């Protein structure tokens, strides 16, 4: 056993922390308030190689590992949930599937610009009637000569308004057993028939772009099919397993930020003639928060380590996502409580952490779905 981060991981942590505190943090309140996607920050993150951490150099990546990537998401999440979410989605959902399942040509054409941070990618899975139940997918892709013609509607798609490519899941036929076959197809966003609108007025992660995608007779070459045409469902389950590690890391970041703010405030705030950090009612909250943050981080690191070592990690990624995101919500809630009336004000930031944390319990598999995943892994 070795709980120490490697020198590279420590350096990445320091660098991302410095970058997050220097560049993102001063704008976090504004990003939330204006609900404006900070595209310029993503450009800088791309130049630093942050968008390519878990991909090899030959595909424009930085040759890092999943642990380094999780560390980076946590550090960004500590200062800005919106930026953290868009970052995690760009890497885990927009780029990773091409790395996992793409052909060499697809990787050179579509993964490289994403890993180099020159473009953003999206993942279009959710539909108005297909959320937790992805088998309810209605979007279709019909073969027509050497092309697919795609029709359908996707909703809540992170980063889509700023994406160069969207990986769209669609029904491509029926298997031998009569079950629908779901495939994943890479759709460049400049393709005719694609309409992307971003009209959502969200509770949290307001600066992260969320869009609706309408596909109206969108024609893409068959060569854009990603991976095995019959295994689209399995592929996106694997993709989501990986994505859960990053959402969990984002939860750890928000939870740690909540703890930091609450602890600092509790030491400064005086009531009844003493700092409120002297009172057990406050101490117990802080102790619970600190413990849960550490446990959540350990689970994230373990899930990431399993993935890096090519071991099964489905269950552990679900543990991490479930526990870290619920920890984030609890920690943000307690941070507000410790701040009292001030905590309810935007300026003190902890109310934003709560709004941001709520999304993490929903996106990339709700807490309930995580429990289902775990139960299935237990053999239920």
């Amino acid at each position, binding site marked *: 056993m070795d709980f120490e981060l490697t*020198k590279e991981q420590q*350096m990445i942590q320091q*660098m991302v922390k410095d970058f997050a505190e220097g560049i993102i943090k001063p704008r976090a309140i504004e990003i939330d308030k204006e609900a404006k996607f900070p595209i310029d920050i993503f450009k800088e993150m791309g130049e630093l190689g942050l968008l390519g951490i878990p991909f090899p150099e030959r595909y424009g990546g*930085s040759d890092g590992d999943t642990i380094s990537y999780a560390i980076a998401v946590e550090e960004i999440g500590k200062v800005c949930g919106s930026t953290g979410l868009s970052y995690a989605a760009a890497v885990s959902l927009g780029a990773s599937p091409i790395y996992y399942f793409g052909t060499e040509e697809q990787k050179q054409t579509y993964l490289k610009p994403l890993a180099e941070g020159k473009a953003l990618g999206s993942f279009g899975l959710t539909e108005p009637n297909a959320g937790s139940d992805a088998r309810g997918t209605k979007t279709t892709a019909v073969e027509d000569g050497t092309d697919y013609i795609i029709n359908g509607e996707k909703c809540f798609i992170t980063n889509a308004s700023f994406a160069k490519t969207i990986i769209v899941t669609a029904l491509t036929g029926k298997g031998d057993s009569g079950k629908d076959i779901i495939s994943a197809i890479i759709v460049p966003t400049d393709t005719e028939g694609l309409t992307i609108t971003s009209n959502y007025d969200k509770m949290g992660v307001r600066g992260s772009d969320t869009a609706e995608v309408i596909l109206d007779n969108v024609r893409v070459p068959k060569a854009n099919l990603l991976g095995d045409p019959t295994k689209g469902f399995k592929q996106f389950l694997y993709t989501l397993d990986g994505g859960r590690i990053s959402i969990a890391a984002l939860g750890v970041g928000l939870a740690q930020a909540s703890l930091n703010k609450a602890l600092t405030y509790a030491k400064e705030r005086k009531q009844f003639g003493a700092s409120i950090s002297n009172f057990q009612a406050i101490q117990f909250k802080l102790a619970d928060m600190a413990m849960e943050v550490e446990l959540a981080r350990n689970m994230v690191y373990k899930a990431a380590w399993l993935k890096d070592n090519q071991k099964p990690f489905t269950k552990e990624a679900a543990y991490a996502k479930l526990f870290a995101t619920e920890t984030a919500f609890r920690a943000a809630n307690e941070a507000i409580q410790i701040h009292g009336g001030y905590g309810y004000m935007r300026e003190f930031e902890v109310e934003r952490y709560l709004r941001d944390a709520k999304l993490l319990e929903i996106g990339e598999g709700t807490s309930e779905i995580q429990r289902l995943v775990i139960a299935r892994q237990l053999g239920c």
Partner: protein
Amino acid sequence: MDIYVLLKKTFDTEEKIVVSNGRIEDDGAEFIINPYDEYAIEEAINQRDEHGGEVTVVTVGDEESEKQLRTALAMGADKAVLIDTEDDLEDGDQYSTAKILEAFFEDKEPDLILAGNVAIDEASGQVGPRLADRLGISYVTTITALTIEEETAKIDKDVEGDIEKVEVPLPVLVTCQQGLNEPRYPSLPGIMKAKKKPLEELEIDDLDLDEDDVEAKTKTVEVFLPPEKEAGRVLEGELDDQVKELVSLLKDEAKVL
């Protein structure tokens, strides 16, 4: 150009300083590159990119200093040298460091040596000038701009907020002031490549020095924290009365007049 950077690791600025038994506790403390040294690294990289050559980052420290050296390599330096004094030097001072560096530079021919203006821990600002003196080369402290043309360095030197223009022949040692440049963040590919760059580890033995040669010339008598800052006071009333009150407070209470 053969460019060298003198680097020191210092306490992270976020660390709380704790003094016990007359010493600063550094167990478990986080260390960073001395912020002024970051200007030196950035400038070295820029000068190399413009004029060619190689940037070597040197530190006198301990095993743990490798992290800061690797960070400098990740920013873009080419080579690093760690002179590990942990086993040989109990309490070094600026004399010790300058002496060790002098020995290190004995067989080298640097064109340019860059250091931070001061280290944020002890803030002596001594090592750079002392080293230049020992090496018999020119030095300019607190620089805010550097242009090298042929064999001449054209330098802006910060003098308490004003600028002095200095021209000096190479080789020269400069110490870097805030405003010189904006240090880059090490990029991810930079970090990954840093582990493959050469990092040489030396002890003072390797420089033909004995413990006695580098023994500190100064002695630390006492280490203490500054007194806690007390709350300020805002004077009220008519302006004339306020002035009178202020003067009497400065005289009788603060005793600065």
